């Protein structure tokens, strides 16, 4: 047990700031933006310190209110969630920076409420990651989701309706998760994850435990939008405001994947997964279909944000595939892909946001000749696209490499074929757009004069800086993935896999 304050600061600072922001907002609206940046910076800083501590000392336990687990709630940091917490907090910070121009332009009057929800969303996601208590996880899951529903509803056109559908799905998912907690509570009388892991092994054959497992997986699958439970995702992320989809799209699903890993390999141990291998086999087949479906459906889209949303569905397939392969390489791939995909999706949605902000163009064919106007944004797009396709040395390649090794080790040839084939489909998807941007001359459309206009009309710096940072991450963290794997991820893989 640790008494160092950093584990709680990760959550507490954004949480308290989110309550403070409406108050400050009444007084000075301009203070909100620096305030959320300060809060998210403290949070990111604490998570980095914790990652450092975890790498030095191993797992950290933090007991809320000094109540010892399993009675009290504890926050636990091992290599897995310290790593994910760093990703989540840094990404929220960068997206927070980028939110400025959007908020100023679209709804400056309600900026305080937007930032409040934004911080609550970040808090919820971070809470999911840090907590070591199954029920507490549910609460954070719902905090994040509720903030997400509201944030998505801010968007244009069909946003409220999309958000409403998302809410129906999300609530069912959360309820299933809660039922899973309930069934485990019946048989063990505990809610603490580590405690559950200790108590469960003798009970693996009992029906309530199996039912709980099923509820958990289905519930989390809805939350992370695993095919065929992804139906809410494309609409919600298409209509959400850009800053929101850039925060929610990369993080919510990744945190869902994190929860899935926690459930399958911490609450239930690898030995359970091995004993009931049909579950993981099913999961890997489902994710194979998710990859295929996501890629092919993305091909059919003309709206870029919607296309990205379907790409995201495919990416979730990759992540779930790594879990379903149930071997060391596959899981390494998934954990690495959590980081890589967060960066890729954040950068894709930021690019889409920047273009929509600047020009209002949402359709692919409208993007022709944009590289003259927004060279940096388009460069970021190209880098990200190459990473999504899986071209080395971008980071996306390396997670696919581990996933491929996992598939080969598991002798899942179909999975290997789909992994490779999907990157070809991704290549078609993205090179189609790149071709339009760089090689197609601007066609006739209403705002022609604005595009023909030579010279830069780049996105504002508040959008560009995060984008460029993500792009830099995509380029450099791929090559550093060896260090990340040997320093962090290999300890995050549970024993016995």
């Amino acid at each position, binding site marked *: 047990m640790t008494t160092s304050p950093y584990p709680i600061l990760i959550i507490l600072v954004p949480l308290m700031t989110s309550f403070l922001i409406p*108050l400050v907002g009444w007084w000075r609206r301009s203070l909100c933006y620096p305030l959320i940046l300060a809060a998210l910076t403290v949070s990111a800083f604490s998570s980095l310190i914790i990652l450092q501590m975890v790498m030095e000392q191993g797992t950290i336990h933090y007991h809320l209110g000094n109540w010892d687990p399993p009675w009290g709630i504890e926050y636990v940091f091992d290599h897995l969630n310290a790593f994910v917490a760093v990703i989540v907090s840094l990404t929220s910070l960068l997206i927070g920076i980028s939110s400025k121009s959007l908020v100023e332009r679209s709804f400056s009057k309600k900026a305080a409420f937007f930032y409040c929800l934004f911080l609550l969303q970040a808090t919820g996601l971070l809470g999911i990651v840090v907590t070591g208590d199954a029920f507490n996880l549910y609460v954070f899951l719902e905090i994040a989701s509720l903030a997400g529903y509201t944030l998505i509803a801010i*968007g244009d056109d069909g946003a409220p309706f999309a958000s409403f559908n998302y809410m129906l799905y999300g609530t069912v998912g959360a309820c299933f998760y809660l039922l899973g907690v309930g069934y485990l509570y019946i048989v063990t009388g505990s809610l603490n994850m580590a405690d559950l892991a200790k108590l469960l092994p003798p009970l693996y054959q009992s029906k309530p435990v199996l039912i709980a497992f099923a509820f958990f997986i289905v519930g989390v699958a809805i939350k992370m939008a695993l095919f065929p439970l992804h139906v809410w995702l494309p609409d919600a992320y298409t209509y959400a405001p850009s800053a929101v989809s850039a925060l929610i799209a990369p993080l919510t699903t990744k945190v869902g994947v994190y929860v899935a890993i926690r459930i399958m390999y911490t609450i239930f141990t690898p030995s359970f997964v091995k004993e009931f291998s049909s579950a993981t086999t099913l999961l890997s087949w489902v994710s194979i279909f998710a990859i295929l479906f996501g890629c092919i459906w993305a091909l059919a889209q003309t709206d870029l944000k919607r296309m990205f949303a379907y790409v995201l569905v495919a990416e979730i397939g990759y992540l779930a595939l790594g879990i379903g392969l149930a071997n060391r390489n596959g899981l390494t791939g998934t954990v690495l892909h959590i980081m890589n995909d967060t960066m890729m999706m954040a950068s894709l949605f930021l690019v889409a946001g920047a273009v929509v902000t600047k020009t209002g163009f949402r359709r692919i064919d409208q993007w022709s000749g944009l590289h003259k106007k927004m060279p940096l944004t388009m460069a970021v797009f190209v880098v990200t696209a190459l990473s999504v396709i899986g071209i080395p040395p971008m980071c996306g390649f390396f997670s696919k490499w581990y996933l491929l090794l996992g598939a080969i080790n598991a002798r899942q040839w179909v999975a290997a074929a789909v992994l490779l084939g999907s990157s070809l489909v991704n290549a078609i998807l993205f090179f189609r757009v790149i071709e339009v941007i760089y090689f197609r001359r601007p066609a006739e459309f209403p705002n022609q004069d604005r595009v023909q206009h030579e010279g830069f009309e780049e996105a504002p710096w508040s959008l560009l800086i995060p984008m460029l940072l993500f792009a830099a991450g995509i380029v450099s963290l791929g090559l550093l993935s060896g260090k990340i794997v040997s320093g962090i991820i290999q300890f995050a893989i549970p024993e016995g896999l």
Partner: protein
Amino acid sequence: MIGPFEDVVIRTGCRVLIPFIQLYGLYVIAHGADSPGGGFQGGVILGASFILLSLAYDGDEARKRVSEKRNVILCSVGLLIYSGIGAICLALGGNYLNYSRLHHLLPVDPVYARALGIFGIEVGVGITVMAVMLSIFFDLASEHEDQGERTSFGMDR
């Protein structure tokens, strides 16, 4: 969209009832540690009293007492009380929400400080729940009042 009910019985009844409801709400909050109750329940009762007020009179009457701005402030303040007490424990060198640390500030022993800490938190929760109940009610009840502002809120372009 709550039209004024010109009904003397209802208005007078409410005028009598509301103080008692609010008192009961406060009791439930304060007595939460020893009997069923606490911040959530008490807060809901308090909120209900205001809802009753606005049902019996009209939205404006209740809003005069708790305006939207004041509501949001109450909401935030309640939560800040909650997380602030936890943070004070943190600042006093304990873990988050370790109330017994409060005995450094309060002239009582750690065990009693723990009880006081919980009470403080219940108060915070109660205020927030009351404010949230009210704001949900106001939002649902006031259908067309600030439509212009809201539609501008929903545009991405």
